[in-house]
């Protein structure tokens, strides 16, 4: 197999298995809360089984063995011979953790073989009861479910001629009936032309033709339901029974763009034999080409050459240890892709239309008519391009549950470790957010929750003394508010004493700290150097690395973080995040000759300011907005020669978190979308811009990072 194919396989494996591993953790949590739930036991069993099979296929023997032992334990729980007591659950949790660690190591290019599984395996086998212990599984891979030795698993070598097929009970029944009718059992291997751009429909057409003349028993990869990606259908294996081989051949060959259809007669017994009876199939989307099926071969069993290859591969360290595989593929709701495709189809249509119009002009067609058609076509193109943009943006959105789902486990473990019973409430998990933001959010959220448990929530005795419920409460909610995602993390712990922050700040020489409002004091927690553990733990018991959280949220994600607290009642950290990072709706303004864009999420309104309303001296001006005195900045003063003096000014009212400010501009131009591109550090030494954008006319627009209105206070 080529290196590229191997990388692709690893990638597919990682993607699939990481999800399985994550689900395993979640299902175990659910199972712990509801141990008598047979469905959950089955679910966890299925997950360990899938992990076992997938890792065995990839030659990750240590991982596979671990999953196999967990599956054993769950098998006993499933058939009622083992009850899920604490030691059993703990050993399963330990196993799930180790699997997650192995997956992480494999993703980074490491190997599962670097992990010591002895203790966990010991724990699992003790949990299961010594009486049932079985000899250890082969070290490189676990046996398949049906008692098949693992050597029978076709390896990741893609030299297998056709994917071996294993059948379920229903399919076997079909075979038995066909045999009784005296039909032939045929296995077809259909190869689509390399050049065919759409392989799935091509293979589907063959399948559909075959269905008309025969009894199709099984297709690999599957044609209905959960289908694999298009390229995988370059080769399809179809098992069918028929009274006329000739008719089958004809039906298959009627389709164009088919490179080859290989027809093999098979013995019914090969598929109905005892060995194949209980074989358990785990479909592994993305791994089909590698022949992800076990057991039930054709007349000729899996070749010995294939076995040698498999054995060699399993032992060779290269099989397990290649370079890090970056996770570059994403899962997208296919409906979103369908939308995109139909838009592209329309686009192609209009392209030809416009080409025809230019020909029309050449042929001397009336220019007015052509122009009208052109305008019409342009309108459509406009609609199509905004549709495509919207759909493309939609494909970037994923539910925040991707991160939230990790929290129950985190809280469970921390709460045990610290001896603080805590209830975790999650809500708004289906809120969708840009995937690039999601990835960057995981760490800060984990950090804040950790802080809540570590420093916010009191020990049970202390809580009782303070008249609180013995059990602490942490809630995490997400919701969308216009163009902003709001995530709130709240605990009912001891809170933070703002006054002691003030004392600390004054002691550290923070200018103006004496007169800071509570909000300003709390914001100090996010400053680097201030929120070191010693300092803040002394004050109130919170703040390990809150500056890191702030840097990530305010800096990298262009969002904001606000802390609110009430002593003895608890603390709430609110994160405000933009929906997406790449395209923003913005207010285009001009200062001197330069254009600037103000993200609409940061613009409250626009206003006309009369110079008499502006108070204070230059550089420290303010004016009333509603009933609030807010600072007045001006683009001219920030970036140019100063504000020119007139009686009346145009201004945008900016907001960042709970702060507001006027920004005086020379011209309010329009609201529009701008595409954000990274800005050069040289141009951005003051960190005033979150990016630049280039307009159609080639003009450069600076996108203002309005968080400066917060920074200016310090």
């Amino acid at each position, binding site marked *: 197999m080529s290196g590229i194919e191997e990388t692709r396989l690893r990638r597919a494996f990682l993607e699939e298995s990481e999800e399985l591993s994550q689900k395993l953790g979640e299902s175990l949590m659910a199972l712990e809360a509801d141990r008598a739930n047979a469905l959950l036991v089955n679910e966890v069993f299925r997950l360990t089984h899938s992990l076992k099979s997938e890792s065995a296929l990839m030659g990750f023997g240590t991982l596979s063995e671990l999953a196999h032992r967990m599956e054993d334990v769950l098998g006993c729980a499933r058939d009622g011979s083992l009850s899920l007591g604490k030691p059993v659950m703990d050993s399963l949790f330990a196993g799930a953790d180790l699997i997650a660690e192995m997956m992480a190591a494999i993703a980074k290019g490491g190997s599962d073989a670097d992990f010591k599984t002895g203790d966990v395996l010991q724990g699992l086998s003790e949990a299961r009861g010594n009486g049932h212990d079985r000899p250890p599984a082969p070290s490189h891979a676990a046996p398949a479910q049906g008692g098949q030795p693992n050597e029978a698993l076709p390896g990741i070598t893609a030299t297998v001629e056709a994917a071996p097929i294993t059948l379920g009970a229903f399919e076997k029944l079909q075979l038995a009936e066909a045999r009784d009718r005296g039909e032939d059992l045929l296995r077809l291997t259909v190869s689509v032309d390399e050049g*065919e*751009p*759409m392989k*799935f*429909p091509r293979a*589907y*057409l063959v399948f*559909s033709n075959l269905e008309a003349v025969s009894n199709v028993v099984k297709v690999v990869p599957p044609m209905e339901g959960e289908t694999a990606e*298009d390229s995988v259908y370059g080769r399809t294996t179809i098992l069918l029974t028929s009274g006329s081989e000739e008719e089958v051949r004809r039906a298959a060959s*009627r*389709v*164009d*763009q088919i490179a080859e259809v290989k027809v093999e007669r098979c013995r019914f017994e090969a598929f109905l034999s005892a060995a194949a009876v209980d074989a358990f199939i785990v479909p592994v989307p993305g791994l089909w080409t590698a022949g992800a099926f076990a057991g039930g071969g054709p007349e000729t069993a899996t070749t010995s050459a294939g076995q040698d290859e498999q054995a060699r591969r399993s032992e060779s360290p290269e099989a397990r240890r290649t370079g890090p595989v970056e996770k570059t593929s994403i899962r997208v709701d296919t409906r979103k892709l*369908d939308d995109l*495709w*139909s838009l*592209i*189809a*329309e686009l*192609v*249509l209009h392209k*030809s*239309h416009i*080409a*025809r119009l230019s020909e029309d002009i050449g042929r001397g067609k009336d220019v007015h008519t052509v122009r009208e058609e052109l305008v019409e076509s342009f309108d459509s193109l406009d609609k199509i391009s905004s549709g495509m943009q919207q759909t493309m943006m939609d494909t970037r959105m994923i539910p925040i549950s991707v991160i939230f789902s990790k929290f129950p486990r985190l809280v469970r473990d921390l709460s045990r470790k610290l001896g603080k019973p805590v209830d975790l409430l999650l809500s708004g998990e289906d809120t969708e957010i840009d995937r690039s933001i999601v990835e960057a959010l995981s760490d800060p959220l984990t950090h804040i929750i950790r802080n809540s448990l570590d420093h916010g929530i009191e020990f049970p005795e202390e809580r009782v003394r303070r008249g609180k419920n013995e059990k602490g409460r942490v809630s995490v909610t997400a919701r969308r508010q216009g163009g902003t995602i709001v995530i709130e993390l709240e605990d009912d712990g001891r809170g933070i004493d703002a006054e002691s922050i003030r004392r600390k700040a004054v002691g550290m020489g923070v200018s103006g700290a004496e007169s800071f409002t509570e909000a300003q004091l709390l914001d100090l927690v996010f400053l680097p150097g201030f929120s070191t553990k010693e300092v803040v733990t002394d004050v109130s018991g919170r703040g390990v690395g809150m500056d890191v959280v702030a840097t990530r949220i305010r800096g990298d994600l262009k969002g904001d973080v606000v802390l609110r607290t009430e002593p003895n009642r608890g603390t709430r950290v609110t994160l405000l995040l933009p929906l997406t990072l790449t395209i923003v709706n913005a207010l285009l303004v001009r200062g001197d000759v330069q254009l600037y864009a103000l993200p609409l999420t940061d613009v409250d309104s626009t206003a006309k300011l009369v110079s008499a309303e502006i108070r204070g001296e230059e550089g420290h001006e303010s004016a009333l907005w509603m009933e609030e005195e807010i600072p007045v900045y001006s683009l001219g003063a920030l970036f140019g020669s100063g504000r020119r003096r007139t009686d009346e000014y145009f201004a945008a009212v900016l907001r960042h978190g709970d702060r507001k400010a006027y920004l005086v501009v020379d011209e309010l131009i329009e609201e529009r979308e701008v595409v954000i591109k990274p800005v050069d550090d040289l141009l951005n030494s003051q960190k005033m811009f979150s990016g630049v954008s280039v307009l159609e006319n080639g003009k450069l627009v600076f996108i203002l990072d309005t968080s400066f209105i917060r920074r200016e206070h310090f």
Partner: protein
Amino acid sequence: MGATILIADDLSFMRMIQKEILTERGYTIAGEAADGLEVVEKFKSLRPDLVLLDITMPNMNGLEAMRKIFTIDPHARVIMCSALGQQNLIVEAIKAGVKDFIVKPFKPERILSAIEKALRV
């Protein structure tokens, strides 16, 4: 005289190319249609041996038009022309009984070999 073929595509340019390819090979162009309604009408009156049908057309898309054609003649031979990415539509068309499909942009020999195979049935 070669088999008769009805061409349906809303782009006259596309019809022109197809016409050229087919007549050069000796097929007879039974007629042309620029939208779904028209192709159904023309199929009724012309009864061609085969229909080359674009999947996206105004007034009645190719898929619907094909279904209508099958109600007129269940054995009609229809080849669908589609753009890349209309995979789901094609699968729909296959379920509805299309004989073959061609993905745009195509080479002349693609149309010809698909037509030859479909006509052999």
